[in-house]
């Protein structure tokens, strides 16, 4: 299945990415109304300005002001009241759309979302699925995300759906949408959350109801691929890639290249050999042994990775010589 989110630049209008939820068309309509209205007014202001600047430029024939008009109450009142009416219309319109964006339909399907430095965890309470950095939803059904964070504030943003909401620790916030079309969409974190902020992305897959039902019963792990290849896949899907590289460069965390079997200097001055036990421990209790030169920022993957997945990741690391 294609896993790459559709391009935000490549689709949609000049200004906005393709609109893909039932409420995003409302937002776009108002956006365009304001955009065209502002453009017209702006051009009018600039045109008048340019006209005055040319017409009344200082020349030998125009060494002093021709006439001193210094006030005109009608004019003042009209450019106070007319803009006021215009912006009030925009306000009410925007507020009505905002309420649509804010109030999820009662029959929404619920997915729990947890933001963590630096990945998104999705939990389907009814269906019992757990996903990392990828969420799958059915088309044409309202979905309500109940979100919380485990560390700092994050923000859940799907540009194609025109929805965004901060994800606050120790609180729940909600965002809802109903996808119009099937496809793969980009999810960003838009509240600054530290070194991995720009890597804290997820993909949102919209499937038709029948595909979605099929997906639900599909087993999460395909049994037939070799462990190291599975590990390579998990490296991407479990968000390891946000902080670790496989090419030797240091990101937020140390690189995996040439890691296995070598000695690692720790922040507490000791040194350990990177064997299976060390790697396993680094995944489930990452702050027990912190590598020298790196901050202890990695969240624990205990509960997020099955035993087989940990083994797969270790096998993958072994291949990175």
């Amino acid at each position: 299945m294609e896993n790459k989110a559709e391009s935000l630049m490549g689709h949609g209008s000049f200004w906005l990415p393709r609109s893909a939820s039932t409420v995003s068309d409302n937002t776009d309509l108002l956006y365009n109304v304001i955009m065209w209205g502002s453009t017209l007014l702006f051009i009018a202001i600039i045109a008048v300005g340019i006209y005055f600047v040319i017409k009344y430029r200082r020349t030998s024939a125009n060494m002093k002001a021709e006439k001193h008009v210094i006030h005109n109450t009608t004019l003042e009142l009209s450019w106070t009241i007319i803009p006021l009416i215009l912006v009030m219309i925009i306000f009410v319109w925007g507020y009505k759309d905002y309420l649509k964006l804010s109030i999820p339909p009662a029959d929404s399907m619920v997915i729990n979302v947890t933001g963590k430095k630096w990945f998104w965890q999705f939990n389907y309470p009814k269906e019992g699925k757990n996903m990392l950095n990828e969420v799958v939803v059915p088309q044409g059904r309202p979905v309500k995300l109940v979100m919380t964070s485990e560390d700092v504030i994050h923000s859940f943003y799907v540009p194609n759906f025109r929805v965004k909401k901060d994800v606050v620790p120790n609180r729940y916030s909600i965002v809802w949408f109903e996808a119009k079309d099937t496809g793969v969409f980009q999810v960003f974190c838009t509240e600054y959350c530290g070194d991995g902020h720009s890597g804290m992305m997820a993909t949102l897959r919209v499937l038709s109801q029948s595909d979605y039902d099929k997906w639900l019963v599909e087993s999460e792990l395909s049994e037939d691929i070799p462990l190291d290849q599975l590990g390579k896949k998990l490296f991407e899907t479990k968000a390891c890639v946000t902080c670790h590289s496989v090419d030797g460069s240091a990101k937020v965390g140390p690189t995996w290249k040439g890691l296995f079997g070598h000695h690692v200097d720790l922040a507490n001055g000791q040194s350990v050999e990177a064997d299976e036990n060390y790697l396993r421990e680094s995944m489930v209790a990452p702050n027990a042994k912190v590598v020298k030169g790196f901050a202890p920022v990695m969240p624990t993957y205990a509960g997020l990775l099955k035993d087989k997945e940990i083994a797969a990741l270790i096998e993958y690391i072994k291949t990175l010589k």
Partner: protein
Amino acid sequence: MAHAPSGTNYLNATKGWKSWLFTLDHKRIGIMYLLSVCIAFGLGGIFALLLRLELLHPGQMLFTAKQYNQLFTLHGAVMVFLFIIPSIPASLGNFILPIQLGAKDVAFPRLNLASLYIYIFGASFCLYSIFSGAVDTGWTFYTPYSTATDTSVISMTLGAFILGFSSILTGLNFIVTIHKLRPKGMTWFRMPLFLWAMYATSVIQVLATPVLAITLLLLILEKTIHVGIFNPALGGDPVLFQHFFWFYSHPAVYIMILPAMGIMSELVTTFCKKNIFGYKYVAFSSIAIAIISFLVWGHHLFVSGQSEYASMLFSLLTFLVAIPSAIKVFNWLVTMYKGSISFEAPFLYFLSFMFLFSIGGFTGIFLGTLSIDVHLHDTYFVVAHFHYVMMGGTVIAFLGGLHYWWPKMFGKMYSEFWARISCLLIFIGFNAVFFTQFILGAKGMPRRYYNYLDQFQPLHAFSTYGTWVLGTGFLIMAVYLIHSLRKGAPAPDNPWGGLTLEWKTTSPPPVENFLVTPEITHDPYDYERAGL
């Protein structure tokens, strides 16, 4: 009119570094502020150039993610706290305000000098924080990130806290000066509009900045003794921090833009040789902006988890603040009608301001609209919007004012030719950098991203190229302005044909501003009566 071209003035009256460091003369203090804010602007500008360079391509170029985060935080903090807030009020305002008023000095000269030293003290904390594990929270210091990070948040917030008091004391000084030191004949409605703007600014400085002080103090307490009120893990509310922070920081936006608007009123009258259109509307719109600015802070919290009801309230009030700004723009526009317009560098800045500030204002309507802000919040659209207002508005006006009053301040003329070239480069460069970012933001590019999707690369690259044009413009300006100090032609007392009081004294002015105390008998911009 007094003429003493070869006489003593405030620059040469006393000599030696002590006569500067211990001066109580508002003009010298203004010059020292000018130097300080220009250094801060240079520093913030270098940070900006480096940031854009890093964003030329996705992936790592020059910096690691952490270094990039520290850079954008420092860029924001230095530009906001060290440059924009004191830029016009403390430098140009300090120099011009008492002279335009017809006073010998500000009401409390010692306090004025004290605010300069408080500024420098606060600035040194900020600089210290750069070298002691630079802060990486963004200039907004949102909790709980700021209470959890191990970078030097405390020294930076302490610096901003101290700088706040410099700002409060300057504002306090100006309010008292305008109330108590107006000479005979200088009634409220004969005050130049720059003074009205400065007055409105000062009100915000005095009444909003203390809330920043308490916010930062509580943040420091949160970080050191864990008071708990901003820390969600302890039952506190991080959104409350955002309320506290923006209660100051939104009015602070008007601390930045109001003085700029004041300068625009001066420029348009002088270079059109025409009385301002709708004096009272322009004057009172400054006061209206100052008051309404206290009511709109919640529009920074539309997606933060603030209640829907509060968002509605703040959105409504946000639209109201657009009106007085629009009134000003329309009045300036009509002031040009039937004037006699000349195009020296300061007026070019006026025209740039009209163009850029209008775009900044119109894009503000998008962001004030609830449903659209949900899409645009924390994207590059916001970045572009506030740069159009802060840089296209305030910085452009600051440069306009600097070029307008430069001959008065130093008694030297700069090269008009190079001034026009540099203004043009800044205008073109600025639009290249930031208009691009409107498109990026609307397309969904989030702000404060070290890395980005490949598809955004062409626009990011274009924006980065723009910064080089912009940088060149500023570099040229630095060269010709410094050159003018040494080699510039002596400035006449009134090079632009202005009518306000600063043009009735010598260039540079004498120590007590006027050799003959000026008499004020009519409007500040009465070109008709002056027969000019």
